[in-house]
């Protein structure tokens, strides 16, 4: 809750709300300030809450359900949602709520791997291109143009297939790495433009003139100054990666059964959609809620970065 105190509450309000509230000079009591901040940021608060729940599901699934997500119980086939089984059970008698809770681990882990790969590869390429410029910059940027001209999802599919051709089976981690490699072009572009922007500034000129090494300048100036925009892109990419990995799993190219993964759960539940719609609906809602949450958090972060 420490963010709330720092947040300048009047600056965030819509213009017309400014005039209806208290007189601007009156110091607000802290509870009023909290209430006003919540009033204008309720979407953000819900988003953070949703994302935290998903994160907790991924980290400590055992604390949220005592059912096993994989063990088969033929006596409990396709039950409707009830007090014991909140989201019902699937064809093999597995509790759907437990599978969604454990599925958060696969989905978020996959998305995190994808984004980590994208950030690592993308910032390395972008930083080198932006800092050194010249021929290397031109070649790297052309290469990235080419990467972007092949539809990313197809490229990810191709990489997954290459992996499958070598090992004989698909998996969550190769799918995540494929998604990460494909989306690294976006990061490379962003980091390059950030590096160029910071590089042109007076304080970097001053630092170089006073003898700072490239490494020092990057560590002290370039990274701190581009963190805000990068973090907001990371949040967006996290949502996109969740969708892509779920789509790959849906096509059978990502996580393999019986591993619980949200895209896979939707594809399993699909067979019974006419009579047992909840088997499709609940995992789908989990994906939508988490992606919406990451998008909202990202929008807030980029607004803060722009300020």
């Amino acid at each position, binding site marked *: 809750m420490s963010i709330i105190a720092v947040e300048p509450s009047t600056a965030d309000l819509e213009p017309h709300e400014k005039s209806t509230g208290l007189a601007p000079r009156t110091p607000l009591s802290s509870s009023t300030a909290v209430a006003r901040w919540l009033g204008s940021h309720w979407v953000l608060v819900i988003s953070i809450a949703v994302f935290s729940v998903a994160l907790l599901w991924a980290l400590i699934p055992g604390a949220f359900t005592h059912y096993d997500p994989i063990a088969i119980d033929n006596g409990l086939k396709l039950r409707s949602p009830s007090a014991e089984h909140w989201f019902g059970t699937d064809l093999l008698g597995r509790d759907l709520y437990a599978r969604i809770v454990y599925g958060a681990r696969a989905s978020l882990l996959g998305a995190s791997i994808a984004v980590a790969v994208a950030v690592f590869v993308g910032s390395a390429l972008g930083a080198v291109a932006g800092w050194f410029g010249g021929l290397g910059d031109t070649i790297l940027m052309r290469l990235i143009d080419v990467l972007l001209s092949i539809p990313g999802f*197809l490229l990810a599919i*191709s990489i997954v297939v290459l992996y499958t051709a*070598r090992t004989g089976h698909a998996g969550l981690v190769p799918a995540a790495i494929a998604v990460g490699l494909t989306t690294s072009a976006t990061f490379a572009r962003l980091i390059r433009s950030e590096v160029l922007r910071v590089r042109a500034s007076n304080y970097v000129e001053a630092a170089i003139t006073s003898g700072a090494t490239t490494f020092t300048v990057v560590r002290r100036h370039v990274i701190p100054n581009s963190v805000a925009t990068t973090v907001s892109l990371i949040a967006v990419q996290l949502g996109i990666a969740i*969708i892509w990995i779920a*789509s790959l799993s*849906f096509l059978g190219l990502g996580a393999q059964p019986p591993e619980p993964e949200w895209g896979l759960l939707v594809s399993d539940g699909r067979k019974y959609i006419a009579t047992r719609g909840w088997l499709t609906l609940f995992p*789908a809602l989990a994906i939508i809620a988490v992606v919406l949450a990451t998008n909202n958090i990202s929008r807030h972060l980029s607004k803060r970065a722009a300020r």
Partner: protein
Amino acid sequence: MRTYVFKRFGQAVLVLWAAYTVSFLLLSALPGDAVHNRIQNPEAQISPEQAQVLIEYYGLDRPLWEQYGSALTAAVHGDLGYSLTDGRAVTELVGAALPSTLALTGLALLFGVVFSVLIGIVANYAPWKSVREVVGSFPALFGSIPTFVVGILLLQLFSFGFRLIPASDDGSFVALLAPAVTLGVLVAAPLAQVFTSSIRSARAQPFAHVLHARGAGQVYVFRRGVLRNSSMPVLTLLGLACGELIAGAVVTEAVFARPGIGQLTVGAVSTQDLPVLQGVVLVAALAYVTVNFVVDVAYPFIDPRVMVNSKARRHNGRGVTTKATAGAVDREPAALPSLRVPRRLPVEMSMP
């Protein structure tokens, strides 16, 4: 104009060549294994002679750059190799799958543009704040729903629920509607986002205020100034969205069990048919490059400012501008003469 078009065309060809090279390196060079796997697969029943032909055809007994050279030459002549599963030409397979996918993506693009224009206008011009806010949040919502979920829900609702559309592709136009809407939602998300925000920023520009001050109505300002200015970023994005369309078609066609490039891809993936996959990647890149080339060429007609940047055009551009402005003023000595925006000038520059 001609140099501009040539330059863009050269870039397009270069990108296409590079895309081919990347996909070749990624798919064709590595899968010596895939061909050998195929040969050793007892189900395929390939005789040693046929195996020899296969190896020679794919040039697996030659160095990599020679393989690349012959593959590129063949590709330029329209030969993309043969499917590893049924031996049909890749061009034939892709050609057979293309019309269905083109119909789907074309209609989806239309839906996407219609959705985004509606959202952009309602989110900015609706008289009630609550409506503006709700509609304004649609793009974020559209972008957060996976395509397969949209597809499954539409399929369930309209074909099993209301029985309005056939559940599988029977070639009719009605069967095309649900998949096209699914894919349209996917492309509408970024388009609507950009259109909404660019309408907002165009409305805040000085020229819009000046037009209002001179008595122009909301509709006039939108039609004459805001629409043109705010459609530029959308047009750029439209080119980029075509990549999304092809990728989205893979998922959509899988959900609706429609034949097309997507089904071809999924099939090629499950049998590790790399030549077919490479053909699909190449066709996708070709589509992307073509659309972006068309967008680039259309750009100067919508926003002549792009041409000002190229030195050769600057002089000519100015000449045309002067003429157009003079003509417009001459023809309209009536009440608000300078309100008539000359076709060849950016709107905000034309205002006093």
